């Protein structure tokens, strides 16, 4: 039998997920993967919210999570649309290809 998970275990998991997501954003060279990594980061945060809420017996954080999920869905839609537009433009999906927006 595994021991009952405590708040700490959830926070650890969340931190690990966030680190994975961050590493993905910095290391992957495909924009779609980067977007997925951002989703992972968001869900790490969601997990923190829910865990802390459960621990303290409140619901505020859970409500925030719903907002985050909704916004993340919208963000994904917009993000993927931008990705498609970018791909049509240069037939490439590495972020380093798109650096023209500067001085």
């Amino acid at each position, binding site marked *: 039998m595994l021991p009952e998970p405590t708040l700490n275990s959830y926070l650890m998991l969340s931190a690990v997920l966030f680190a994975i997501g*961050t590493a993905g*954003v*910095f290391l992957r060279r495909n924009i779609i993967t980067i977007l997925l990594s951002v989703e992972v980061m968001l869900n790490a945060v969601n997990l923190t919210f829910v865990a802390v809420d459960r621990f303290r017996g409140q619901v505020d954080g859970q409500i925030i999570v719903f907002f985050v999920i909704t916004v993340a869905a919208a963000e994904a839609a917009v993000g993927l649309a931008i990705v498609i537009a970018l791909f049509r433009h240069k037939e490439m999906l590495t*972020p*380093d290809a*798109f*650096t*023209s*927006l*500067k*001085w």
Partner: protein
Amino acid sequence: MPLYLIPLLPFAGFLVNAALGRRLPKAVSGLLATSVMAASFGFSAMTVYRLLGLEPVDGVRAISESYYTWIGSGSLSIPLAFRVDPLASVMILIITGIGTLIHLYSTAYMHEESDGEYARYFSYLNLFAAFMLVLVLGASFPVMFIGWEGVGLCSYLLIGFWFTKPTAAEAGKKAFIVNRIGDFGFILGMLALFWAFGTLDFQEVASKVALLPSDPSSLAGATVLTFASLLLFLGATGKSAQLPLYVWLPDAMEGPTPVSALIHAATMVTAGVYMIGRNAVLFGHAPFTLEVVAIVGVVTALFAGTIGLVQNDIKRVLAYSTVSQLGYMFLAMGVGAFAGGIFHLYTHAFFKALLFLGSGAVIHALAGEQDLRNMGGLRKALPITFLTFLIGTIAIAGIPPLAGFFSKDEILWKTWESGHKVLWGVAVVAAFLTATYMFRLLYLTFFGERRHKPDEHHDTHGHGAGHGSHLHDAPPAMAIALIVLAIGSVVAGVVGVPHALGGENRIETFLAPSFRAIGAEPQSELTADPEKVAALEHGSSIELSLMGLSTLVALAGIGLATMIWLKRPAIADAWATRFAGVHRLLLGKYYVDELYNAVIVQPVKRVSQGLLWRGVDAGLIDGTVNGVGLVVRGWSAVLRRLQTGSVRAYAMSFFLGVVAIVGYYLWR
């Protein structure tokens, strides 16, 4: 009937003509402007009639009306208030009465302008009348100042009425700027009075001043009374064209002739004289200022008279004559003969308006010709103009029993009586000059051979195209104005026939309360004191002989003019070559304009250009602004290297930033 109707009527005329004038035919806009003036005259007459029927309160008859508190702040409370007392009543009658005649005259004089221009002219003229009435009706300095500035504005607009002509536009600007210098003094004087007395109402200032002792008659030990009155007098020299600020008035002759008659002879330029009369108590308590006023007045009278002697432009001669006559009025004010000054103001309004309108009729007949050298022999062709002009000339020369004689003599007598014998002497010389240059004008215009060449059109005044070369006398509207003013010039003096000639000098008795503080004892001259009565009788024999002397002086002036310009025109040229230096000096108007240009205008221009523009504006201010821009640009050239365009670099900087901030809070 409320007082505000008097200025409001011309103002309404201004609004209508300014808004709709373009669409109105000339007959309508001219009739409108003239009839509002006539109505205003009617109201003024009724108001004065009411005033005469009032019982004096504290020795003063006055109708005061306060409409609302215009400025209220702390201890400062300035109601928009009008007051009619004897002094103001004389002024409103002059302004509306002579104003109506000049409006009427203008309907004919300006008839060659287009509809829009015609309406613009009348709207300005109405606006001027409204402001002038506010000036004289105002019960306090600030209300007077509204009118004071307003008439200055209208003067500018009307001098520059033919603004496409560069000289007219320049003259308008000159009048405005020179007046601004005087107004600066007026404002400072006003502030000084408020600082000293906490009120700006004329009556209240007068009551408070009356309680103070008089200032000493020198600058040493002078108090605010002397300084405030000197500053106010500076304002008066600007508006009333006295030395050293008279320079704008001769140039103001660029405006239409009726404007010169109304604004630059009969009414506006007398505002300074009126203002001193209004503050007679204040000026009376500042003997030093009065001395300055008298000296400036008499020097101006002489100075302008000598210039008038040689000028060749018919209107400029009259302009210098106006400056000279205004000098007389200031002389009267300066020797404490306030009633005498206002009396001269009143008679002068008649004959000077008449002379200007007469000269306008001549210019009109000659299709815009203003040069005396091209006139002559017009007596037969322009009989009405000639006769009325002759009356005006005799009146201004001071021949009894015309109006000018009584008022001028009143001033001379009061000057003598107050012990200013030197000033009296100068004033008599100026009177001699007046008679001389006015008759020179008359002879050169109406007598002798006709020197005008009909085929040469000097179309400087918008007259000409329709006129051709035939001479025509004043049309009816102009003739009526001339005749009424000529009658006025003859009979206006009856209100001021001195005691010495068996008259009662009613105008002096009538005006006297206006020159006292309320409740002050009237300084009756005819009290029972037998010594005083004896002195007065003794005085009246001197007065009679002085009167005879000044009449002789006037006749001598006329005689000289007759000898030179009527009988032997060659003498004038001979003298001009013999005294070439003096002649050139006079013809060049003592080169005052050139002097001002060199001493004031050019230095101001140089400082403005070299220091203020190139140095301060372009160097300091622009330099600061451009310098800030350059510094920002330099730094941004460095900083913008951080903006690489790589999304991952940005994300990394976010991340590192968050790590740094969170780390700080965790490990601090």
